[in-house]
């Protein structure tokens, strides 16, 4: 983890999304899919916490060598400010942060399931998996056509891809959960990776556990520091031996987790729909497929 004053090489709109590419050779070499960046806010503002974004691209070779790209959809004050950033301005960047997705060594066919901006880190992952000779298929979901992140690139990166939108404006109408079962069959996926809303992640986790498919998900728990200092970003994680759970920091021990180990009932307390029901014991979790 390093902190750099990084020049913005490129800042552009991608439909509803914004993409920012920074020059950060010190970081670019070491980043892996699933890791994220922490961006400092400008001084004298009423909003002061750093904002966090998954890494979408790391260029190690060619003209763009040493650059990193992240993608975001403007939500509130911080991303509104970021959306105004222009090339050649400088950003206060800390990274790479967090644990990356693990690559399967033996297993070969991977299904990547993304909602909204979740596609950004998964496209990065897809590249790395293919570079390792894995088969990659994708399910990409979003509210509307505009919210589907880089569909062309998604097609390019995957053997087969299912695109779904809530309003049916692109691909099938529905959610990623509607098409996942058929995709699992058609692709015979051996491993699942997902980046989506918490409640979607939970459903995906349950689906994979039923079918005994090892999976990894990346979570977006709000983070005050992003670098392990404050313990505001914790996720309740079941111990490997099933002896209980610990609140672990998503910024340090995550943001990528084995969803089978997340104590969903407890973590999703703040989701209106979910009632806090104490689980009856914990499963002993199989290690990540070696």
């Amino acid at each position: 983890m390093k902190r750099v004053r990084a020049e913005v090489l490129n800042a552009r709109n991608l439909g509803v999304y914004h993409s920012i590419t920074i020059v950060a050779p010190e970081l670019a070499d070491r980043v892996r899919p699933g890791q994220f960046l922490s961006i400092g806010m400008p001084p004298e503002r009423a909003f002061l916490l750093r904002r966090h974004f998954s890494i979408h691209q790391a260029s190690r070779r060619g003209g763009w060598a040493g650059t990193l790209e992240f993608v975001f959809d403007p939500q509130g004050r911080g991303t509104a400010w970021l959306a105004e950033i222009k090339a050649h301005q400088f950003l206060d960047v800390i990274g790479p942060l967090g644990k990356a997705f693990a690559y399967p060594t033996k297993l070969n066919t991977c299904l990547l399931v993304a909602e909204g901006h979740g596609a950004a880190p998964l496209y990065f992952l897809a590249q790395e998996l293919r570079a390792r000779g894995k088969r990659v298929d994708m399910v990409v979901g979003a509210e509307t056509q505009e919210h589907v992140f880089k569909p062309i690139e998604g097609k390019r990166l995957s053997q087969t891809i299912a695109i779904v939108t809530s309003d049916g404006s692109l691909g099938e109408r529905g959610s990623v959960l509607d098409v996942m079962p058929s995709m699992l069959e058609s692709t015979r996926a051996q491993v699942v990776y997902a980046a989506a809303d918490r409640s979607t992640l939970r459903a995906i986790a349950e689906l994979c556990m039923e079918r005994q498919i090892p999976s990894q998900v990346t979570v977006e728990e709000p983070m005050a520091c992003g670098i392990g200092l404050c313990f505001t970003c914790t996720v309740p994680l079941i111990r490997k031996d099933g002896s209980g759970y610990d609140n672990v920091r998503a910024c340090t021990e995550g943001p990528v987790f084995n969803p089978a180990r997340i104590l969903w009932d407890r973590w999703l307390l703040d989701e209106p729909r979910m009632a806090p029901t104490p689980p009856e014991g914990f499963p002993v979790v199989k290690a990540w497929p070696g």
Partner: protein
Amino acid sequence: MARLRSSLGVDLNGLRFAHPVLAAAGCLATRRDGPGLVDLHRLGGVVTRTLTLAPSKGAPTPRAAETASGMVSFVGLQNPGLDEFVAEDLPRLRKAQLPVIVSIAGSSLEEYIRIANALHDLEGIDALEVYLSGADVERGGEPFYARPDRIHEVVGAVSRLSRLPVFVKLPPLLPDLVETARLCVRDGAHGFTLIDAVPALAVDVDRLRPRLAVPVGGLSGPAIKPIALGAVYRVARAMPDVPIMGVGGISTGEDAVEFLLAGAWAVQVGTAMLVNPSAPVEIARGIQAYLKAKGIASPGDLRGRLRIQGEVPEPEVVS
């Protein structure tokens, strides 16, 4: 920073720091995968995450929400508990060779006594900081600071049995802050840490819910700096010889100087460090630059330098 230290040393009646900028309680992980970008060796000292006898899982999430020039947070004292702290965290801190102040909390008088006992003759602990904002199970869960007599019991007990200097961390929420502080000194407190985060709520109007899982958390950051300064000023004026560590919204050298002028002997940095891991070092540098510019020898010399305007007699003839 070698040169920096030489001119920035402070002495809190026996407790010495190479420079007056410490990490505030709960804002600097001391775990294995700990302080990240914060350079332990360049801190004036560390106050640990508040420690309890048993390990604590802390509160559910969300634990933090951003507010105007601040944040509201409720971590719920998540900590590894006494045994693991002593076995793992403490040795790591000792390696860093910097002053260590252990923040302690109990849910009953007995727990305070037991944890103070367990810590008081350990190597590598330089002082205790008594956290009083926790729930008092013997008083229906109200905070310990809610009753002077309860503060008296806890501070008295801890101070009596520990050979370590004891700092009492007080919230600003005491109408009789100064009186309470006097009480603590009589009970054997070595000094004070002012202030703890201020009880506060943030509401999510879209989802009609508090932003935090535990609704009322603590407000920290620049927003509360003037409140913290007010508390430091009042206690320092009443007891100029009692060491005070000022904490609350400090993010620049100037902020720290405000506290030192108001009567603090040292300062602690929390939220600012979360946003800028090198804040403590930059703040120490800022203090040094200020002292140089003003031709003042050491941070301690700032204490009591605040020029207060005398009471103003009304001109007689005024009808």
